[in-house]
């Protein structure tokens, strides 16, 4: 009942309707819209859209650049690593070589000094031998001389046995001195 009356009330306003078309309004809407389109296109859309494009390009470029830089850095790092490895190997090699050389040098020196010392000892032995022989020879000569002198003296004073004995004792004591 109520709803029917309500609809009736709405319908009773027949002089104005929601779907009445007002030509003036249509004209003004179109005029306003076209003016708005022209003004905005010139003062808003063109600068804003071009700025957006520019920024997008700038960001894209920056990202590409960053990517490139990163790749380059990676490459550089790799190269550095390779070089470091090489240098390490080199230093290891040098160390090894120097160690080997030192070892060899040490061995050589040792060998040489051993030989030298052996030679020196040999020399010293020979020298000793020579001196000994020399000493023996001189001793022998001395003894022979003494013996001859003694014999001479004995022969000179060979008067009696007493004197002989005395003489012998005297010489012996002299020798003993």
């Amino acid at each position: 009942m109520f709803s029917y009356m309500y609809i009736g009330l709405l319908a009773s306003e027949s002089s104005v309707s929601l779907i009445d078309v007002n030509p003036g309004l249509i004209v003004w809407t179109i005029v306003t819209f076209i003016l708005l389109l022209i003004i905005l296109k010139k003062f808003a859309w063109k600068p804003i859209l071009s700025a957006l494009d520019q920024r997008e390009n700038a960001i894209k470029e920056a990202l590409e650049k960053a990517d490139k830089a990163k790749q380059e850095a990676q490459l550089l790092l790799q190269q550095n690593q390779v070089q470091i490895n090489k240098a390490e190997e080199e230093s290891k090699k040098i160390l090894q070589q120097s160690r080997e050389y030192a070892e060899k040098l040490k061995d050589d020196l040792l060998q040489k000094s051993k030989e030298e010392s052996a030679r020196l000892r040999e020399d010293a032995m020979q020298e000793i031998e020579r001196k000994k022989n020399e000493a023996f020879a001189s001793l022998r000569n001395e003894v022979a001389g003494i013996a001859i002198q003694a014999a001479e003296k004995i022969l000179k004073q060979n008067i009696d046995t007493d004197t002989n004995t005395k003489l012998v004792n005297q010489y012996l004591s002299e020798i003993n001195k």
Partner: protein
Amino acid sequence: MNTQVADTLHKAVADTVAKGNDSGWILHHVMDNKTLSFEPFGEIHFPVINKLFGYNLGFDIGPTKHIFFMWLSALLVVVLLTIAARRYRNGNLVPKGLSNFFEILIVFVRDEIAKPTIGKGYEKFLPYLLTAFFFILFGNFLGLIPYSATFTSNISVTAALASMTFIMTQFGGMRSNGPLKYFKNLVPHGIPVFLIPLMVGVELLGLFTKPFALCIRLFANMIAGHTVILALIGLIFFMHTVFVAPVSIGFALFIYLLEILVALIQAYIFTMLSSLFIGMAVHQEH
């Protein structure tokens, strides 16, 4: 209980009818008229202009409430977007504040509406779509401010906007396909020959139903919320009781919040569908 409520309503309706105070005020409020009312501060009456350069037009071309708010909204759009665009001068690419806000909407229209629906060559239609979007958006939101009116809830305005889309669609279609080929391609290929006359009729009708639907959709959506809010508030006076006020206000507030959402969504939908129709016309199926 139920009959009691019905009786009360019946009596209330009978009262209002008797007083000659019917619900026409709702229509009066949501419809266009020649006065800008700022109750209780006063009213501004617009002049009626029937003649232009001495030529009788046969209709009133003077400003109305909706024309006033249309101009206000157009002015707002121009001022705000020009300010927003100023930041990009001198090759400055860093957005800030207002530019940032509008940029979100512009990029949204460009990347979510124009690019996917039109595809290649969308740049040509972007100014139209952006203008339509911001014009409708500002109109919808302007209507939510007290004392103002929603010019997008006027069928004349939406019809004019829809016809602009129609023109853009036909223009775009003819431009990218050539006028003859465009109309030839309207009829799908590979259908039986005897169906072609029928299809021509259907497709021609389809050309006009698309903008018609655009027009009605925006109009109905924008007027519905306001009508419901007015009806809910009117219920307090209609039923002669203050106890219905909390319910009325609560529901009216809810509808108002919904209206904020609808204002944005309808601007989006109008632009989206316009873009879709343009895209369909530009890249016809072969």
